[in-house]
């Protein structure tokens, strides 16, 4: 690549260096970056400061600096380790399941609804519809649908011959299943749409060529569709991963972290430390640890998966 490029302007030949940097470009990005810094990074700096104080949210006197006390608490206190490990585990379980549900069913539905006729477009729209509705409202209806003795789901299961009513929100494992049902129902339409848009972008030639070679549908899926969808999958994987790790609203509406902390995901635990225990200092250290974990996992996932992704030429 040449270092300069000749351009003719007003009859004069000018040499413009390719690597020239423009302040104007910088200023285009600046407002967005500044606002993002204000609404996300400034609070994190504050959290770092708070993590060295003895700040409780209800105290009226000024907080004092206490050094590494909260950090010591985070890594050594029994009360911290117990709940921290629990919520990490819960978050991990939720994230893995949610990614599997959203991406798996998203891909499945995308293939199912990949049919360009009007009825299918209408059905697609219906499947996507839950996403229009605020999680805070969806939670209310799911709560009622999942009521042990009077909810419509258990009544229907009873009709199908299940005698024992399931304690959806009170059982250790079912509580997580309930939340996954809500978030899966809410989010799968979005994954379907993205997969579908990617499917439409794959040239028919690949399939026609492979059909001539005698490939079966399953083989086509395995050797053509899946590799060509891998950038989409990575994109969805990363975004779903981050949003799953951050899950809060659905847990708050559905179970409030219960039963027995079995659905107390990280963000819920952090919020609970600040507002139920009034310990924002401890909440801050926990939050910072959570960010570090999230950052490390996300970056390493991107590094690892990037190698296995096939980009279309």
């Amino acid at each position: 690549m040449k270092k300069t490029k000749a351009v003719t302007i007003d009859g004069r030949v000018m040499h413009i260096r390719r690597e020239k940097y423009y302040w104007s470009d910088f200023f285009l990005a600046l407002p967005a970056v500044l606002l993002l810094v204000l609404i996300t990074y400034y609070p994190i700096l504050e959290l770092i400061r708070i993590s060295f104080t003895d700040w409780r949210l209800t105290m009226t006197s000024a907080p004092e600096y206490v050094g590494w006390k909260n950090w010591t608490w985070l890594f050594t206190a029994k009360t911290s380790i117990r709940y921290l490990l629990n919520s990490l585990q819960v978050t991990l379980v939720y994230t893995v399941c949610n990614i599997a549900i959203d991406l798996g069913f998203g891909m499945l539905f995308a293939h199912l609804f990949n049919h360009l006729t009007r009825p299918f477009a209408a059905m697609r729209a219906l499947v996507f519809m839950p996403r229009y509705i605020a999680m805070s409202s969806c939670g209310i209806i799911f709560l009622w649908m999942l009521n042990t003795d009077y909810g419509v789901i258990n009544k229907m299961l009873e009709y199908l011959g299940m005698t024992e009513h399931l304690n959806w929100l009170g059982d250790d494992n079912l509580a997580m299943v309930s939340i996954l049902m809500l978030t899966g129902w809410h989010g799968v339409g979005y994954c379907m749409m993205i997969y579908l848009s990617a499917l439409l972008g794959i040239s028919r030639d690949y399939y026609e060529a492979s059909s001539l070679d005698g490939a079966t549908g399953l083989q086509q899926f395995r050797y053509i569709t899946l590799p060509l969808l891998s950038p989409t999958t990575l994109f969805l994987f990363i975004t779903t991963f981050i949003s799953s790790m951050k899950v809060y609203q659905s847990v708050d509406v559905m179970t409030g972290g219960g039963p027995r902390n079995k659905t107390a995901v990280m963000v819920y635990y952090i919020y609970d430390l600040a507002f139920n225990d009034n310990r924002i200092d401890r909440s801050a250290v926990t939050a910072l640890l959570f960010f570090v974990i999230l950052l490390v996992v996300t970056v390493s996932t991107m590094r690892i998966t990037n190698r296995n992704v096939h980009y279309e030429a």
Partner: protein
Amino acid sequence: MKKLFSIVLAAVMLLSCTALAEFDKSIPDGTTFTFWYSFSGVNEAKLLEQVRAFEAENPGITVDAQYIGSYNNIHSELANANTAGSGSPALSVINVPRLTSYSKDKLVEDLTPYIEAFADEINFDDFYAGMTDMMNNGGYQAALPFGQSGQIFFYNKTLMKEIGVEFPKTIEEFGPWLKTVYDYTGKTVLDVCGNDNAYFYCLFTNADAYMIDVESNTTGLRSDAALNLIKDLRSWVDAGYIKWVDADVSNTLRLDFTSGECAAMLYTSSSYANYKKVAENGENGVTFEVGIGNQPVGISGRNEQYVAGATLIIPSADCNTQAQKNAAFKLICYLTAPAQQLDWVHTTSYYVTRKSASTDPQYADAYAAVLADLPEMDVLDLNVYVAKTKHELFDKCGDIFEQYMSEIMNNKGDVEENWEIMCDEIDDTLADR
């Protein structure tokens, strides 16, 4: 001479000090303040009606009443406003368990000087002592009672008459009663609200097992009495007598009870009016009379009952002027006065907070009207209500308590093992301040 002079001087100084400390209770015209509350539905309408009546009586004061949400919402908003140093209301509703840490952190005003300054508008001694004690932390009166409720039993009175049994008054009578009713109906006898320790905690304290032993800073639940009680409860759950409800509680209890699926339930007294209406109109297919039962008396004869529910606080935040706080206290005086309380109770089925409401002849008509609509209120003896252990970690420990109780009752966890872990966990929490 010199001595006399110094005494006089000291006396003068003392006097001037008292004069300085004299509470400024003035409320200039045009005082406006914010009032946060948690009530909705009919309760909200009644509260706002009373607030408007207060404004009509005090034209110089305007109240900006704002619905914030549940107690938890109000708590986080108060904490937020405190942190930001602005936006605190001059008056707020909050639930009882928060008060200990609030008074410790001086997040709320000590109401004692207000009570003295406004002595002609509020008769503090007229409140039931158990209620105001609960809100007093070492002389620091953090709040005054407003929408008090208790953790009581509701039972199907019609069914009890049919079977010919009385609702049990002591814990010893409980087992036989559960069995008798179960043998008759073949259905669950008692639904217990299991997601809040407040409901079953009284059973433990009446068995002399307290969650926090302040002296040793460990849990008093590590006692045989507590373990035996848990074993009893578990055996009743296993026998199908008791259903321990820990999810979607209010709906489940309401439906179970009003549709005749259970004969009794342990829940909040403030649901009384609603259950009574549904049960007496047979809205859920069964028509019956609702009875109220107190927490059972313990083996040792201990009979403690606790109040919970809404109290009124004045946040200490500097963003409100003394005049605004005074106006807020004036509204407290108004809302907690016997006449207003009776009207409030009539709508909300909260407890009457004033002794004079039931004894003073001038309220006799209003009191009779309340009893006519809510006859079982008479069963409650508010004089036996006492303050619970005041500890800022009470709620936190309570969370652990209710979690392990659910584990034992609903997950069929091993009783002794879980009880052991529970006590360890509460001890850890208490040790970690």
